[in-house]
């Protein structure tokens, strides 16, 4: 195509907006929530605004369906709609919807005014969704910041509690420090290749790899590794997860993480960023080991799940170490499958935690879970499903996700990394089983009646539990879809119908 003719086009096409529709819908609903917030009275703000926000996410899911009918690039190759971005759009928007559902009662119990809370979840979802479709480092950075800044604020939303504002300030300081590293890497990548477009970067790096590109990749990995809580950039995770409101932890341990993994996949596999192998290898091995070992000694359920999330980031990173050959497809698709399985079980687990936490989140110690099997059999059973899936017991999504990642790694001859992963899964089983044993084999510490499970939490638990089991029993469809996405990611020129080749600005 003629690059000169390309630059003549000055206005975006109508179809560009369709490819951007989920983000537009989420932003509009976010703004509606913010505008309505002062108009409804405090008592009922909770319910009404929650409904609006939920409606927003459902509309955005419908918009994603529409968007998936129009694959291609939009806004001068700033965003790319392919099955890969559609996949992550569905995932992060569904996570946002489930978190909104499970927050209903929580907000009342904690006596938090709800307005901005739902608004920020929606804005955060805009950033996460945008991250998965952005193919331009500038836009990736903006999307990353939209999602991060929203989560910084959400982490401190129980603002009268000292630990919540402390968690927020820790998250903010370390988070923006990491973003600065990421940006420095982006600047160097621009210097090394002369472009910020993923597609052009991959072209340049295909022919020659300047030394600067290695440095740039390392810096970018520091920034993004922080966001996915992989070791050695994981130190913030337990503190932030402990202090932040429990439903929000469910969001930030799944949504932004999945989105950043999407960015990492684009940078490593689509832009061909060099020097991936050892960065990933070391980080994956460290994350698994440190996460699991530290989780063994935790007594607070939120901290325990925080360390478990570090460990899971490690398992997931194994898939990134596969070489850029024919096996790359399997690696990418196993990573994508893992994000879905992990999102289902973790959102569910945190929905249980936030329901049991009670006013002021006082019941978050492991001891508080003693005897749960007798006090509330159904809740205990659901939590057991999630924990079994986190261990990786067959018939659950967690098992198949791990199995798929390990088999991709073995195909790529990553024997040592796989062995480290398997050993760590065994270590991990201990602390998850300890919670299950506490729930079923111990006498409860207090005999007070548990609050009834509210409908929002109930629906969240039902959806996540069913998804977890379905992913374990019938993984086929998700696997096929992710394989197709992976193929499109690695060979964009073969699938997208109307990629407009970017004009070179020199």
């Amino acid at each position, binding site marked *: 195509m003629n690059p000169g003719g390309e630059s003549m086009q000055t206005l975006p096409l109508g179809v560009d907006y369709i490819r951007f529709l989920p983000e537009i819908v989420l932003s509009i609903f976010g703004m509606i929530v913010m505008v309505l917030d002062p108009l409804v009275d405090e008592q009922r703000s909770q319910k009404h605004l929650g409904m609006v926000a939920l409606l927003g996410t459902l509309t955005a899911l419908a918009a994603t369906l529409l968007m998936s009918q129009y694959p291609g690039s939009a806004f001068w190759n700033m965003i790319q709609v392919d099955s890969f971005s559609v996949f992550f759009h569905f995932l992060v928007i569904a996570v946002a919807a489930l978190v909104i559902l499970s927050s209903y009662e929580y907000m009342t119990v904690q006596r938090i005014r709800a307005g901005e809370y739902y608004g920020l979840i929606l804005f955060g979802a805009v950033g996460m969704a945008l991250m998965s479709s952005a193919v331009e480092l500038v836009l990736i950075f903006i999307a990353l*910041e939209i999602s991060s800044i929203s989560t910084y604020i959400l982490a401190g939303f129980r603002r009268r509690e*000292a630990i919540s504002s402390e968690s927020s300030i820790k998250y903010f300081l370390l988070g923006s420090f990491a973003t600065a590293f990421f940006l420095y890497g982006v600047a160097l990548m621009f210097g090394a290749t002369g472009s910020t477009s993923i597609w052009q970067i991959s072209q340049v790096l295909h022919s020659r790899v300047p030394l600067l590109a290695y440095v740039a990749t390392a810096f970018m990995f520091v920034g993004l590794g922080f966001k996915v809580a992989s070791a050695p950039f994981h130190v913030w995770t337990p503190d932030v997860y402990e202090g932040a409101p429990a439903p929000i932890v469910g969001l930030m341990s799944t949504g932004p993480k999945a989105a950043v993994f999407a960015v990492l996949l684009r940078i490593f596999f689509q832009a061909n960023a060099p020097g991936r192998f050892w960065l990933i290898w070391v980080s994956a091995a460290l994350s698994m080991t440190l996460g699991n070992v*530290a989780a063994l000694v*935790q007594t607070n359920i939120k901290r325990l799940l925080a360390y478990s999330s570090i460990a899971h980031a490690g398992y997931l990173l194994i898939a990134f170490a596969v070489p850029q050959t024919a096996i790359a497809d399997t690696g990418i698709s196993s990573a994508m499958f893992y994000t879905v399985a992990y999102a289902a079980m973790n959102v569910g687990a945190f929905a249980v935690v936030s329901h049991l936490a009670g006013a002021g989140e006082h019941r978050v110690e492991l001891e508080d879970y003693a005897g749960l099997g007798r006090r509330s059999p159904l809740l205990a059973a659901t939590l057991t499903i999630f924990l079994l899936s986190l261990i990786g017991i067959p018939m659950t999504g967690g098992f198949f996700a791990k199995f798929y990642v390990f088999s991709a790694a073995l195909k790529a001859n990553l024997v040592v990394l796989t062995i480290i992963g398997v050993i760590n899964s065994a270590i991990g089983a201990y602390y998850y089983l300890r919670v299950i044993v506490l729930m079923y084999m111990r006498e409860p510490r207090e005999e007070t009646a548990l609050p009834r499970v509210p409908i929002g939490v109930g629906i969240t638990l039902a959806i996540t539990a069913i998804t977890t089991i379905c992913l374990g029993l019938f993984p086929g469809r998700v696997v096929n879809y992710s394989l197709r996405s992976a193929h499109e990611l690695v060979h964009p020129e073969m699938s997208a119908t109307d990629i407009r080749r970017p004009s070179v600005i020199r």
Partner: protein
Amino acid sequence: MVPITTLHYLIVAAGLFVLGVVGVLTRRNVVIVLMSIELILNAVNLNLVAFSRLWGLHGQVFAIFVITDAAAEAAVGLGILIAFFRNKETVNVDEVDLLKW
């Protein structure tokens, strides 16, 4: 006189970056830590503008985005800091110590 080349700008930027990192790691006042982060972002801007000499306007446009983002981040950061100050009456990083393992 030695002509100023792109490399000179990059060295200055790298210096700013190191200063920022050292500031974040050693300073105890949250406000100064925030300022150090801004310093890193300015190093990024300098890099981007310097590379623009080689590769065209892209970098300068990017730098404007970074400046905007830095402003947004500072606004949110100071807000969070005020919420924190109300609870603990301090802006000292050493006293952010409720949560630890």
